[in-house]
């Protein structure tokens, strides 16, 4: 009995420590400072981009830089906001790490295939949408899955990525399917290849990139959601938000946007880039 009491005491101590620590965690510091002022002073904007997503942000191992649509848009925006000599710095993020990194002040803005959703808007502020994606499915060429309806059976496993909006969507559109969440798109693709799930689901732009990279896989079912991508900023960064929205309008007006769109999506099979042009 005495030992039991001691054990309870220890557990109590530990939980108290946890509560104290969590109180520390909720304090904010870096993210409260004005990002636009800081960036203008250092002449650098630090963007969080994907590094595992072909077409949007993919690490090129030959020269160790991240390349893609998001990256080029970020560079164009940086030039508009800071002037010709403005520097864009890129930090690799995943669906799961991007919001924590933004909140900690490691990055100034997220431009990483991030859908504008009401839940996320409680945590971060979004710019205007810079790309209109929609959720779709990637399957083996031989698969008999034609649309999201075919997934709504007990025992069907669907692969998604932790932190992505698409996981929540699939639970809505195919509630009977079991969702396997993997940590990034490369792992999700590997899991699809090894047959851990019947389909991989995420936004069509990302899936087209995967289909281009992996022979024997195709995108099916069209889009069953609307996923407008936005640039995410910390709450209370209105000056930066305004600057980004203004820069976005400028690159759309002067043709830079369409040029970047054509560069990345011009040759993607099944994707009509003209429809997405602005």
């Amino acid at each position: 009995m005495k030992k039991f009491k001691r054990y309870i005491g220890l557990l109590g101590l530990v939980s108290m420590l946890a509560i104290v620590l969590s109180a520390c965690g909720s304090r904010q510091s870096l993210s409260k400072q004005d990002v636009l002022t800081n960036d203008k002073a250092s002449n650098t904007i630090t963007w969080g981009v994907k590094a595992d997503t072909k077409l949007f942000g993919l690490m090129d191992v030959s020269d160790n830089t991240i390349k893609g649509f998001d990256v080029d848009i970020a560079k164009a925006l940086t030039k508009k906001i800071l002037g010709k000599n403005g520097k864009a710095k890129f930090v690799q993020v995943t669906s799961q790490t991007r919001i924590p990194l933004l909140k900690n002040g490691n990055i100034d803005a997220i431009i990483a295939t991030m859908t504008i959703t009401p839940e996320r808007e409680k945590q971060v502020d979004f710019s205007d949408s810079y790309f209109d994606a929609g959720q779709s499915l990637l399957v083996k060429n031989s698969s008999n899955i034609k649309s999201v309806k075919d997934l709504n059976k007990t025992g069907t496993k669907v692969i998604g990525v932790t932190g992505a909006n698409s996981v929540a969507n699939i639970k809505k559109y195919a509630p009977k399917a079991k969702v396997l969440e993997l940590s990034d798109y490369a792992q999700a693709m590997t899991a699809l290849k090894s047959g851990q799930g019947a389909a991989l689901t995420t936004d069509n732009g990302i899936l087209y990139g995967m289909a281009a990279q992996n022979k024997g896989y195709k995108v099916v079912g069209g889009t069953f959601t609307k996923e407008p991508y936005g640039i995410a900023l910390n709450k209370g960064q209105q000056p930066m938000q305004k600057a980004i929205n203004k820069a976005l309008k400028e690159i759309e007006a002067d043709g830079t946007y369409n040029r970047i769109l054509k560069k990345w999506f011009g040759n993607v099979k099944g994707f009509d880039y003209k429809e997405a042009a602005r």
Partner: protein
Amino acid sequence: MIYILTHYWSELIQGLGYTLLSSIIALIFSTIIGTMFAIFEVLPSRTMRIIGRIYIEIFRNIPLLVIAMFFYVLIPMYVAKIDGFTAGTIGLTIYTSSFIAETVRSGINSVDPGQMEGARANGMTYWQAMSKIVLPQAFKLVIPPLGNQFINLVKNSSVLAFVAGFDLMYQGNSIASLSLDTINSYMVVGVFYLIITLPLSYYMRHLEKRLAN
């Protein structure tokens, strides 16, 4: 923290269940397999010693994540359909067994060789002497390091998160991304791990004390 606990209770309990299940399975089988390879290593037969050595050196020196990914990706592709939970648990068992083998071997080696000789001189076979005289003494000696291995095993079960094994860490990642409250989500997960490891830690200590007398 309270918000995370109340809103994601069922996910957390599911995660706790899978972590516990995986840990228990891995604990039982890694102890059996580990002890087996420890005996291999002290056998008079040279071939058996080499087999034991190879097994231990391979799996002790590859990161657990790599072993788990091997079972998650390659085995379903070429051998049998296994899900993330099974793949992760197999990886965890094999990885831990190599450490347990080393621990138990050191225990066997520190038992006075006279014990084995005496047992054999009294007419016991090698296996009788090993199982009735040497191993009981060896286990008594290695209880503290074995306890460390068991605690590591529970913590290492978080590898399941990377192969979609629905364990505590997986649920933690999922909750963190749903609630967007990273700090509190992982804090809760940490407390849930303590719920498993603290009693285990206490039990090993208790066992150590009881066997010392």
